[in-house]
């Protein structure tokens, strides 16, 4: 009862010291914006790497290689894989895509510096293996021709790959004929063509980097793995696409999340000092008022509560403002970064999810409360007589 009335009285007096309050709100908002943007970025990574990562599609690479770049499969091996158990089939045969993979250089849109872009040669069933694959403009490449389609992410991040324009990769000129999307997945960072065309253009003979296979069910992974690992004719590693991608990006996601959290933590220390300052000023402005309440018989606890509630509200305001700014400024923003595990450029969209916003606001409230703790404690324990003497 008394705490509630002291809290209300205090809040009524906030408009009288709005400027200082706003400074603290903006300080916390800045920190939360950085935190939310960072989290949104790692959410974007995870989404890019996980959305495509189907649990019922297997990626098969050379035994012991962690990525496609370092893998080589012979066409004889690909044949064995096609006949392995656990793989889905339809009227036109097994649902597998033999894939070749190289890196090509393209200038980034912003800086113009060259970056590695995955250039993938795919089999005719490749689109069926990516259940979210959709052509957004143009058409598919025609098998046997020097035509490519580009992922939406690659199209937005790199120069020189517009539909209808020729582009130079390696020794050859290619026609860009379409743009595809794949629910924001890592596939959208790639450029695709016919696997045989790519093999020929890069003098790869009939060798492949990977084979993708649609499984009968996620549980079939185990069976496929058993069959291929024990088959003396092949030397391969089998993983679900989901596991494959998350393994490929683990270091990057960890780095971004750790770095982002560290930055938000360091900035948070600054914001706490800002909040401490504001709450000290708030308490100083109310010294005589607090002393008067104490003289009338109000307890120190009620005074502490009033300071903490104000601090928490400053935190909430800062959190909401920062979250909003991050949402407006970053949600959906497309960017790309080098995945140093695959040596290729990964494009992704920042995702300000409700969970990310919630984390930002919780952090903001914590910053406000930590900032209010000491000034509030001091206010609750100050000498009443000294407070009454102050003006």
């Amino acid at each position, binding site marked *: 009862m008394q705490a509630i*009335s002291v809290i209300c009285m205090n809040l009524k007096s906030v408009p009288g010291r709005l400027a200082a309050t706003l400074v603290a709100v903006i300080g916390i908002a800045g920190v939360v914006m950085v935190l939310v943007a960072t989290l949104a970025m790692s959410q974007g990574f995870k989404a890019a790497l996980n959305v495509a990562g189907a649990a019922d599609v297997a990626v098969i690479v050379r035994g012991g290689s962690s990525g496609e770049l370092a893998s080589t499969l012979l066409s004889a091996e690909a044949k064995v894989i096609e006949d392995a158990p656990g793989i889905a089939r339809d009227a036109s045969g097994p649902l597998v895509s033999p894939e070749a993979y190289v890196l090509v250089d393209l200038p980034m849109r912003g800086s113009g510096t060259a970056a590695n872009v995955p250039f993938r040669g795919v089999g005719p069933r490749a689109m069926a293996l990516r259940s979210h694959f959709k052509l957004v403009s143009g058409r598919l490449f025609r098998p046997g021709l020097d035509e490519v389609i580009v992922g939406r992410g690659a199209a937005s991040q790199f120069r020189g790959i517009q539909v209808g324009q020729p582009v130079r990769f390696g020794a050859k000129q290619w026609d860009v004929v379409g743009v595809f999307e794949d629910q924001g997945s890592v596939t959208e960072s790639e450029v695709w063509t016919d696997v045989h065309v790519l093999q020929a253009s890069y003098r790869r003979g009939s060798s492949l980097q990977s084979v993708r296979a649609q499984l009968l069910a996620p549980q079939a992974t185990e069976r496929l793995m058993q069959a291929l690992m024990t088959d003396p004719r092949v030397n391969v590693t089998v993983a679900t696409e989901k596991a494959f991608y998350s393994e490929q990006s683990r270091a990057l996601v960890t780095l971004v999340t750790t770095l982002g959290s560290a930055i938000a933590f360091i900035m948070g220390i600054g914001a706490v000092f800002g909040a401490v300052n504001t709450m000290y000023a708030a308490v100083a402005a109310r010294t005589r008022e607090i002393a008067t309440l104490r*003289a009338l018989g*109000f307890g*120190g606890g009620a005074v502490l509560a009033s300071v903490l509630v104000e601090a928490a509200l400053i935190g909430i305001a800062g959190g909401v403002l920062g979250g909003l700014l991050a949402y407006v400024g970053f949600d959906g923003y497309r960017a790309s970064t080098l995945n140093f595990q695959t040596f290729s450029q990964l494009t992704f969209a920042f995702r300000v999810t409700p969970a990310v916003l919630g984390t930002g606001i919780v952090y903001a409230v914590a910053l406000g409360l930590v900032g209010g703790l000491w000034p509030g404690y001091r206010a609750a324990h100050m000498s*009443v007589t000294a407070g009454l003497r102050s003006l």
Partner: protein
Amino acid sequence: MTPALVEVRGLRKEYRRGTEVVPVLDGLDLDIASGDYLALMGPSGSGKSTLLNLLGGLDQPTAGSIRVAGVAIEGLSSNELASWRARHVGFIFQMYNLLPVLTARQNVELPLLLTRASQAERQRRAEAALSLVGLADRANHKPGELSGGQEQRVGIARAIVTDPDLLLCDEPTGDLDRKSGDQILDLFDALNREAGKTIIMVTHDPRAAARARRILYLDKGALVREER
């Protein structure tokens, strides 16, 4: 003789400034009867406010005892003192100390928030206290919309709304013109003579002191003279 409401024995108070110890009150004895009206006079810095604050339980003495209505308040913890103040003492300050964001009625209601009184009861009692000081028509005004004299009358209403035994006033007319000051002093007269309130008033103004039943002179922390 009426029994003493306030009994002070061997009261000492020192303040500490860093390592330096500043003695303010030096072994003071004092009895104040219930229903008395006492003026405390003396030069600036003689310890008048310090004594008043000790009597009201706003501060702890360095040594000595203070009994108010039989309770030895020097032994109470700061939380116990706070609730003791809420029940037994009404403070009236030189600068009124009203909360600027609250209306006159809300200011007067404040001490009642510490009691069990219902909201309707609080409102009724606050309005009664405001009409007693002649400000029933200003209940919804904020302090900034009132004159100094009116603010002080709201301060008095706040002090008496819980019906305390003891009213403690620190230079209540010190910031007022003579006419407003006289109105305040008239109110104290009425509170003392008609409602039987015990009043202790620190003042610099001999005309104000003359309205009291007793005048005590304090100098350098000691009682030097008494007039009746």
